[in-house]
């Protein structure tokens, strides 16, 4: 190879193999007769051979680039997004399929919880009936499923850990379509573990998980409620408590957003946490 360096002008494949043919030849896109024609010309064109060799190794390097990603497990957030796409296409609400057995298993408990649930609302000491019960129940059911599935999770309780809190907030804010704040519950002994994105029946949901040093976990589940057909769903409600299931929790609606705080705690402890959340949002 005594040819001058072609780095400065790699297009200069002088004896005129058209540039397009060179690329098509390299990419295996030339019909056979043309391919042979290029083969012949390359045999007499060392500069073009150099160029082709460089491009070929480039092409191979690109095909190898990030290849391990192809075998990586698909992150749950992307699986959930794929599920939403399949659902929006099929128009069937199959959100519960996601989560598979675990969610189905949890549903059994949750249904029991709801059918026996005592719905009460507390605000300023007086008890009032919770409004928009239908949507609220569905929302709370989903929150409880999410809690039951993820709270016992040892290795992957969250998708994005608290260490990347900034990213977590940016990401979930984008998904839920409004700027979110992550309430700080450290004053009550609960540190943020992280959060995840979940599919809900009226759009994306976020779940934040907190835990005590002793490993006691609570989850905050939130997302926009669809006001279209059922405007009452968006109305603000008092805190509603359900305490007879495996996961007691408080639920409320504020500015079109539903919130559910769940954990295996006393009603008083949960109320205190729910109020702390409410005051910070």
């Amino acid at each position, binding site marked *: 190879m005594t040819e001058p360096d072609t780095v400065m002008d790699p297009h200069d494949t002088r004896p005129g193999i058209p540039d*397009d043919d060179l690329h098509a030849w390299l990419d295996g*896109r030339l019909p056979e007769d043309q391919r042979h024609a290029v083969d012949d010309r390359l045999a007499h064109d060392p500069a073009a051979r150099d*160029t082709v060799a460089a491009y070929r190794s480039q092409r191979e*390097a690109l095909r*190898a*680039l990030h290849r391990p990603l192809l075998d990586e497990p698909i992150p749950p957030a*992307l699986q959930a997004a*794929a599920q939403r*796409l*399949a659902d929006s296409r099929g128009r069937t609400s199959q959100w519960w399929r996601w989560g598979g057995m675990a969610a189905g298993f949890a549903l059994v408990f949750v249904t029991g919880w709801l059918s026996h649930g005592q719905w009460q609302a507390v605000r300023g000491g007086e008890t009032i009936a919770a409004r928009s019960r239908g949507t609220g129940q569905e929302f709370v059911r989903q929150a409880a499923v999410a809690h039951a599935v993820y709270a016992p999770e040892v290795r992957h309780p969250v998708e994005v850990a608290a260490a990347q809190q900034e990213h977590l907030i940016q990401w979930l804010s984008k998904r839920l379509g409004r700027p979110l704040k992550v309430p700080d519950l450290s004053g009550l002994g609960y540190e943020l573990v992280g959060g995840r994105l979940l599919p809900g029946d009226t759009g994306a949901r976020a779940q934040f998980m907190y835990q005590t040093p002793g490993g006691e976990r609570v989850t905050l589940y939130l997302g926009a409620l669809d006001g279209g057909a059922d405007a009452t769903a968006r109305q603000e409600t008092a805190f509603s408590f359900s305490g007879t299931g495996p996961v007691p929790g408080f639920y409320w609606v504020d500015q079109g957003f539903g919130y559910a705080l769940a954990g295996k705690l006393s009603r008083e402890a949960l109320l205190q946490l729910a109020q702390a959340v409410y005051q910070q949002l």
Partner: protein
Amino acid sequence: MRQATTATMDRHTIIEQIPGLRRYARALTGDAWAADDLVQDTLERACSQWHRWRAGSDLRAWLFTLMHNLFANQARSLSRRAGSGVQVDPDEVAGELRAPDAASDLALDLQRCLLRLPVEQRAVLLLVSMEDLSYEEVASVLAIPVGTVMSRLSRARSRLRELLDAPAGDLAARPAAIGAPMLRRLK
């Protein structure tokens, strides 16, 4: 080609596309977080526009189209915000700090050089080389004529060759940029 399996849109066929989308997005953005965000955005966009997808047409190509449009918009607003085209996205930095993973030096170099290509050239080069799309498919994904695909491919390859051949220090001294202007080629 997996025409038969991509002609419908159910969960399985969508999931099947994700690894490829993630890899392409990763090479396009050079950042693990940004890439998965882009894939997620793409799927969300598909959710809102699925009615525009023609059943029976190539799902993969359609998803690439959505992704490309999203990315082009992002890159435009990024370079507007950052002026000189230097990225200041905290996600980017987080990715750099977090994810040296198993990538070899060669792959890092290649990725760095890729990011120095103008976005349009990078997209063509990746779709042709990494994703093995035909020139016609690339033209339709990017909504440009085949002739433009060819000229971008040609410029991308020769530019990448220059970059890869350049001494490493020369590259490291310059920040990687999504919308870096192409250096003028010497005649």
